[in-house]
């Protein structure tokens, strides 16, 4: 089970800021997870935008990052500052 977090405007699309999910067998990288979730939420590409960064266990990563050992995965749209 992996904890998924959707920040800022993404939670308007996903309907919640947080969920716990068992990753599908064919999702092994951050990029594959983006694609899977974008379809699942019918997000129309909102989760695929390069400005939406992914953090795995509190570290920003690229799309080819393996999700092995991922406990918490965050989808972070551009930050708005304080």
């Amino acid at each position, binding site marked *: 089970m992996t904890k998924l977090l959707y920040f800022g405007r993404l939670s308007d699309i996903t309907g919640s800021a947080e969920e716990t999910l068992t990753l599908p067998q064919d999702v092994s990288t951050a990029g594959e997870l983006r694609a899977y979730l974008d379809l699942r939420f019918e997000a129309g590409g909102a989760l695929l935008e390069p400005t939406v960064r992914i*953090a795995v266990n509190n570290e920003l990563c690229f799309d080819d990052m393996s999700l092995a050992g991922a406990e918490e995965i965050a989808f972070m749209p551009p930050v708005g*500052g*304080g």
Partner: protein
Amino acid sequence: MLQLSEMPLRASELIKALEKRSAGAGGLVTFTGQVRPEAKSGSVSSLFLQAYSPMTENGIESAIAEAQCRWPLTAVSVAHRIGEMLPGDTIVFVGTASAHRRAAFEAADFLMDYLKTEAIFWKRESTSSGTNWIEPRAEDYSDASRWTEHK
């Protein structure tokens, strides 16, 4: 010293605490930012600010460390409000103390630029015309880029 708070921030108390920690520094600069009553999309009824701990704190701590490395500071204080707040509420307080006036001004300015553009916060504004998430203004990006030119 960094503090993210769901409770109201009081600049008067924060400046008093900073004065204590920086006794004899010479100069002390503060910036206090308040929630504006007006936005492009109408008058603001409330503002919601979301952080991602501990990434948000780690990022701000790194900016504080960079400021301390660039300028001779005797004390730094950053307090940021999170959660739901109202127009006029204090959203951010930055304080810097130094024996050198210019250092205190520049470091406070630098930290504010970081907080306004790079700090990990998402901001949702509720106005008379609805609710929207806000992303940084071009002006904030150009302010922040002033600091990298000198690197």
